[in-house]
């Protein structure tokens, strides 16, 4: 095992609470109707190319990417389009979605290889791989849902030196990536090779926090057993510290390089891809299977059966919660994602999408906002900030609407990890104000550059 590495600046260590870590992935039975949102990625929602009454096959394209930052959407089931309407999704807004009345049997769209067999031989070349990733609508499945093909397309003049697979899973509670690593180890490793080939490098590093030792050992063992297949892939244990899985933090931890402020990770010669996305890339490239399902962790302190489900997109979250033992009575907050960066939702009927890594049910005791008191200038927020910012200061100037100051103090570098607010002894909603300041400052910068 390689020596443990970590990022140095800031960070916190919330309770890990990985209750579902030992629960094998279960296939989730599909309901009668599914609701597939067209906006499942960061950026523009896809254009709908089906209409009411159309029969769609599993894996058939139903929405095409619109604009540069956007991703295709495919039908997760076979059935008839009941309507194209709006649905309240995880953001709390009504967004366009395709409602599909399902047929019992899956009929796969032509060209998709339906098999569980491991295919290790990579036939496509680099360009074709990226094209396939784009076609199959693959996005960053850690939660940010940034289209993966844009990340993998190395700009001219730059060179990718490392592929870093982000298997840190530093969010408390979530175990979907961990289970995938344990149960689809070989497929995942082939996926890593595909990404390496796609971006044109022979170095791949899988960064995993040490609270997932079984996965580290299994990956190490598998790589050693098949040196011919998985050459160039290394497993790098990382210290269990939040936000180890932040893109900039994991690059710093593994390579020691810092992504320059305002620049993309490729500046450091790194392409960072999430575990679930890597597995999706394997399925896309080797089996031509578009992204229509993912592993979702349903968990919480009072949840009866914390579980990991393999779930097609469009399944309403309340069905998943039901399958995990039902909604406990003391729940006040429902989170799409993990507790540090996930978004709270007001209803449990939102459909699962590409970015739904977890559905977290939180009790009042755990999630309540506590009474805010005066800032005692302890500086813990600044100490916890992995980006070296001064959250107390950004909070203050954002509150005063002084966006010159927010910009001067690098508000745009904030990664919104929430470490500052987590650690604040005065319970000040630091990140809320910083997000506000970031949005306003971003708009000002954009307007200025357009002049």
């Amino acid at each position: 095992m390689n020596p443990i590495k970590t990022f140095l600046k800031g960070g916190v260590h919330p309770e890990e609470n990985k209750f579902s870590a030992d629960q094998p992935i279960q296939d989730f039975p599909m309901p009668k109707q599914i609701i597939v949102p067209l906006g499942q990625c960061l950026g523009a929602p896809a254009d709908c190319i089906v209409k009411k009454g159309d029969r769609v096959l599993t894996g058939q394209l139903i929405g095409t990417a619109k604009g540069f930052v956007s991703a295709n959407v495919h039908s997760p089931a076979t059935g008839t389009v009941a309507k194209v309407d709006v649905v309240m999704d995880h953001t709390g807004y009504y967004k366009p979605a395709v409602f599909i009345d399902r047929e019992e049997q899956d009929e796969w769209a032509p060209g998709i290889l339906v098999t569980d067999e491991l295919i290790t031989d990579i036939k496509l070349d680099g360009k074709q791989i990226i094209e396939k990733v784009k076609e199959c609508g693959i996005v960053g499945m850690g939660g940010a849902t940034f289209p993966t093909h844009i990340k993998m397309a190395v700009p001219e003049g730059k060179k990718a030196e490392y592929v870093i697979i982000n298997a840190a899973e530093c969010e408390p509670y979530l175990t979907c990536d961990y289970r995938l690593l344990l149960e689809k180890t070989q497929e995942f490793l082939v996926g890593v090779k595909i990404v390496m080939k796609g971006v044109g490098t022979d170095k791949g590093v899988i960064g995993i926090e040490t609270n997932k030792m079984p996965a580290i050992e299994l990956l190490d063992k598998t790589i050693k057993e098949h040196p011919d297949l998985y050459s160039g892939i290394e497993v790098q244990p990382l210290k269990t510290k939040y936000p180890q899985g932040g893109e900039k933090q994991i690059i710093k931890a593994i390579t020691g390089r810092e992504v320059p402020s305002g620049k993309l990770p490729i500046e450091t010669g790194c392409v960072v891809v999430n575990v679930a996305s890597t597995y999706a890339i394997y399925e896309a490239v080797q089996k031509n299977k578009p992204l229509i399902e993912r592993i979702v962790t349903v968990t919480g302190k009072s949840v009866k059966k914390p579980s990991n489900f393999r779930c097609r997109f469009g399944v309403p979250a309340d069905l998943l919660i039901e399958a995990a033992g039902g909604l406990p009575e003391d729940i006040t907050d429902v989170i799409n994602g993990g507790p540090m960066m996930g978004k709270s939702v007001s209803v449990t009927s939102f459909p699962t999408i590409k970015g739904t890594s977890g559905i977290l049910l939180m009790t009042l005791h755990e999630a309540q906002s506590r009474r805010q008191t005066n800032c005692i200038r302890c500086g813990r927020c600044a100490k916890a900030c992995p980006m070296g910012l001064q959250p107390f200061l950004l909070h203050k100037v954002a509150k005063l609407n002084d966006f010159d100051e927010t910009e001067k103090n690098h508000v745009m570098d904030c990664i919104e990890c929430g470490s500052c607010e987590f650690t604040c002894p005065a319970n000040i909603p630091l990140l809320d104000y910083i997000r506000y300041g970031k949005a306003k400052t971003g708009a000002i910068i954009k307007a200025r550059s357009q002049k």
Partner: protein
Amino acid sequence: MTNYTISGSPHVHSTENTKKIMTRVIIALVPALLVAIYYFGWDALKLTIVSIATCVLAEWLIQKFLIKGPLTINDGSAVLTGLLLAFNVPAGLPVWMMIVGGIVAIGIGKMAFGGLGKNPFNPALVGRVFMLVSFPSAMTTWPAPKPLFPIGHVADAITGPTPLGLLKEGLKADGATVESIMKMHGENGDGTFIPFLDQIFGYHGGSFGEICAIALLIGAIYLICTKVIDIWTPLSILLTVFVFTGICWLVDPTRFIAPWYHLVYGGLILGAFFMATDMVTSPMTTRGKLLFGFGIGVITVVIRLWGAYPEGVSFAILIMNAFTPLINKAFKPKVFGVVKPSKK
């Protein structure tokens, strides 16, 4: 359809709060309080109780009738101010002076600026310095310690100066050297000039909370382990004092006492670990803390060796408190991915 709470991330909290932090500092001061009671008995306990009660009551009255804001007395900060203030007075101080000090500490030192977190100066030190300049005689009359269960030799003196005061007065005489003063007041003399070991166990005159270095250090280690304070400010203060007084001592050992005495004499340990580390009034970054500590160290030594007062820790901390906003401005954390343009 139930509607769940919508809030921005993060959705979990470390559950740390101001009260917990203050409580830990108070716990850390308990060993020193016990030692004070051992040496000074009821007097120390009485002044501590009066001081805490005054501070809490003053804060309550001001919040209730002047500021009309939410009551904050249960956050523990007033209790801590009261405790620290009491630690900084001689055990023989009249009760009414303690009450005046408490009112000044809370009223002028803290509430006048808007309460906890807004005060530029350490409230307990504001109270202490106010008392020192208002009641100079009472604030510098040090009752000799009378252990409840005496171990070893006991001095007969009822009151006596602190070692630092003794030294300062003594050196004014013609031909006096550190050695002659130590001999005159040492074990063969009136017993007020105490060997190093007795010094760190607290058997000497002084403000009743500052006398026992060991008890204070136990508390300080607890605070560092629970991450309430970090080592940088105290380390910087102690190192600066040690090096500065060390240089003086090397230059002229007849006029200057050895540096290790300076570390345990007076309020240096109490000031370095419990007053200068006050979060509200000290810098935030490590580099800022080092500079802050350096400043306190230098000012303390200058006052001790050449100033009018034998002791200068309180003044040094208050002066550096005033520089805290500037230090915070000058020493910001390094932002990730930002390279400072190199100076040409």
